């Protein structure tokens, strides 16, 4: 089945530093999404980016479909960015998203 690997597992930054999160997957993705899970547990979709580069606010995602990888860049990190970032993908016409285990980000002031 589909597998999704995220790295690093955890990351600690000082406020203002940039973060680079990686996602690698085992099969061609027709759908690739990044999610944020708050320390309280709520999950929010950040962006959907099955190929190319996409920007929203301080977030930039780059997905290279044929290399089966995606990255999420967070610029000028803030303490409120702390939480877990999840990558999820699906392949073919399947609506099933498979999630990675996430990158836990801590931003210190």
């Amino acid at each position, binding site marked *: 089945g589909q597998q999704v690997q995220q790295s690093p597992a955890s990351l600690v930054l000082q406020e203002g530093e940039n973060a680079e999160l990686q996602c690698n997957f085992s099969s061609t993705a027709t759908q690739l999404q990044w999610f944020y899970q708050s320390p309280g547990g709520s*999950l929010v979709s950040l962006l959907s980016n099955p190929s190319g580069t996409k920007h929203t606010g301080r977030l930039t995602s780059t997905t290279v479909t044929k290399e089966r990888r995606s990255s999420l860049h967070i610029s000028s990190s803030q303490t409120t960015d702390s939480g877990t970032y999840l990558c999820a993908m699906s392949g073919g016409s399947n609506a099933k*998203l*498979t999630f990675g*285990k996430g990158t836990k980000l801590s931003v210190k002031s």
Partner: protein
Amino acid sequence: EAAVTQSPRNKVTVTGGNVTLSCRQTNSHNYMYWYRQDTGHGLRLIHYSYGAGNLQIGDVPDGYKATRTTQEDFFLLLELASPSQTSLYFCASSDASERLFFGHGTKLSVL
């Protein structure tokens, strides 16, 4: 923004007990999903649905039943709950673009 409401927020039951988790979405999404989240495993798909009356098996379906009664409502049933089903359960819905919107989660403890 899509609204997905789960109930209850917390549930404690005993081994062998009967539990129903409820989920309602109010944005006419066709797809609805039930996930469980456990430390070390991440989010895993239990069951999902393409529409009222439709059910699809996810990746970890054993011990769970689901029913999609309407476009809005998706239920997860644990008929003989076991301690291994202690977990955080998330319901989600999606539109044609497959962007997922999650509920706030239900914390289930099976003693």
